[in-house]
């Protein structure tokens, strides 16, 4: 197993180098450059030229590519043009917020997805199964940005207007008066701000997991060993939980790796809408401001997280299924 993980990590290096190269050339092939941000009639041409020199934009593309690569992989991620701060500082602030949001969502997605899927499979062909199938297809088809706005409209804005006992905060990660709260209140405040963003991601993605789990479970229930387990007199619960669930969960684990890019894509919208100061917001704003160093570092970090997620899913797969050996 150790050798396998090591080999996968080594294999990820050319992949990540490729991703970094791809981003660099997309950025540099695009018309316009960061200096055009300062373009206005009041700035004389020579100042603009000086600005280009300072930003290193007057050098040929391949020199800039090599310089960037060397600096990037020696830990110097450069300065953000728009924020005038080191890129590493900005990302260190944003990363925990995104990890908290997507981490909580990922756990809930698989928890609810599996429970609903198994429940449907056990109650196949009942009204509940049909209703849950339609409901999950409905959420599966929903754009996450619209779902986010609808949740915000009902559970934050309208709830406030109608005076519901629980009106959730519509945006942000903490309240304005966060610093003046006691520790307990601070925790409550953070949780309240987490509910709507996490709910958006969970509803949209759990539907897919439920659909997949249901299919796998129905497949497993048809197998001979399930019939054997029933024949030797085990209770229905034991058959489902010990024999059925364990075997149907194995392929569900592969979904974990596949879902991580979707989770980050969803997080981009959720962070934009709920004003959540995470990486999705950072990258969208950086793209609009043509903040090259920040765009490159953030998208590279996204790719790293996807690769790690895939590796984690493959390792989990081997742990869950003793038949799989990576040697």
């Amino acid at each position, binding site marked *: 197993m150790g050798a396998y993980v090591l080999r996968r990590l080594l294999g990820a290096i050319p992949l990540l180098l490729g991703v970094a190269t791809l981003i660099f050339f997309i950025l540099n092939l695009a018309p316009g450059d960061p200096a055009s941000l300062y373009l206005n009639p009041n700035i004389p041409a020579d100042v603009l030229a000086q600005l280009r020199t300072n930003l290193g934009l007057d050098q040929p593309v391949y020199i800039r590519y090599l310089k960037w690569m060397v600096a990037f992989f020696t830990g110097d991620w450069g300065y953000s043009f728009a924020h005038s701060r080191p890129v590493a500082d900005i990302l260190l602030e944003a990363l925990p917020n995104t990890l908290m949001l997507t981490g909580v969502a990922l756990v809930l997605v698989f928890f609810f997805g599996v429970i609903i899927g198994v429940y449907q499979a056990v109650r196949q062909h009942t009204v509940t199964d049909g209703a849950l199938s339609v409901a999950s297809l409905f959420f599966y088809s929903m754009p996450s940005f619209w779902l986010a706005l609808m949740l915000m409209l009902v559970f934050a804005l309208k709830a406030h207007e109608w005076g519901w006992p629980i009106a959730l905060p519509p945006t942000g990660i903490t309240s304005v008066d966060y610093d003046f709260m006691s520790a307990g209140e601070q925790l409550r405040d953070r949780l309240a701000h987490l509910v709507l963003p996490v709910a958006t991601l969970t509803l949209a993605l759990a539907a897919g997991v439920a659909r997949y789990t249901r299919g796998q479970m129905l497949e497993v229930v048809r197998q001979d060993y399930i019939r054997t387990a029933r024949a030797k007199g085990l209770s229905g619960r034991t058959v489902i939980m010990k024999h059925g669930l364990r075997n149907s969960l194995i392929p569900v684990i592969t979904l974990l790796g596949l879902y991580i890019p979707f989770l980050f894509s969803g997080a981009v919208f959720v962070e934009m809408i709920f004003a959540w100061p995470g990486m999705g917001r950072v990258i969208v704003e950086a793209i609009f401001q043509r903040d090259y160093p920040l765009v490159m570092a953030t998208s590279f970090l*996204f790719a790293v997280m996807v690769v790690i997620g895939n590796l984690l899913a493959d390792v989990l797969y081997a742990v869950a299924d003793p038949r799989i050996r990576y040697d």
Partner: protein
Amino acid sequence: MTERPEASGLARARGGRREEASGLARALTLVLPGAGHMAAGAAVRGGWLLFGWLTLVALAVVARGRIAATFSGGTMEDWVALATLVAMLVLVWVWALRDLLAMGRPADDRGDSQWSIASRRLRGNGLAMTGLGLVVVFYLIALLAPFLAPYDPIAQQDIATTGYLPPGADYWLGTDQFGRDVLSRILYGARISLAIGFVATAISVTLGTLLGALAGYFGGKVDTAVMRFTDMVLAFPRLVLLILIVALFSPGIAVIILVLGLTQWPGTTRIVRGDVLSLREREFVQAARALGLGRARIILRHIVPNVLAPVIVTATLGIGNTIVLEAGLSFLGLGIQAPTPSWGNMVAAGRDNLLGAWWVTTFPGLVIVLVVLAFNLVGDGLRDALDPRLRS
């Protein structure tokens, strides 16, 4: 007339032969498609035909002013809508007549192909047929938008009196900030979403199938190169890539279609490659090789047709996905630019006054859900019908 026993057996399997329609029924159908079916006892099919015919005629009557205006200086889209309307009327009429005349004839006793079996399975799937019906209706709406929309989708009215009107008798789904009718904008917006979904998916599926077939058939270095590149594209949250490219190369419909098409192929490539790996060892491919056929011919004529079933399923599900992504780009201001309506930029426009005018955001989003749901239903049905292996 004697029938071969297996032929009548087939006819029974297909729901039995219906009685020949009477002369009266045939004459009725000439005037009112569907009525003949009802007279001949096929009430359900007749009802649908009649409903379709009457809806089209009613639309022509209601929109007669707009149709007349088309002849005296209509725009391109007016002419498209008129052509669609006429084509649909002719289609329903001809189909009703042909179907009626086919009653009583012995069922076709040719053997079943993979596709006719699949189409029979699909027709038996109620949910999938509902989805298909919805998809057809949405495409018709997109084409007929100029005759259906009660108001101009772009012209701004007097903002003071018609801005942010709630849904009511005059404006069924309310008006937006500039007093534009939300319903009309949704109807016109259908064209953008459906066209982009279709064209972008066509590009990605073609590219994905070809790359997958090449990787699978040639193996070795070609395979490694294609699959490593696929991994690279997959290792990247697609939305971020889309935003990056569209933002840098100024948004426009051509850029959006290209970018959506050029980033969606990895899924298709993986599936096709896997299938081709096993297909290339099969006897018929060896036979083709032994006959001395060229590689291009073997791949395009012998291998690709055999992987079409999963490709069609991925494509159908991909259209839904593409529509959501396009809406997402429009939502971020990177898609179709105002004032041209698209469902994504309508949802975004309502964001400014979400509490005060919920209808501006809610209805376009609901339509997106409905369309994507329809495509997913069809895709699920196609998967069950074409390739039971793919069922998840």
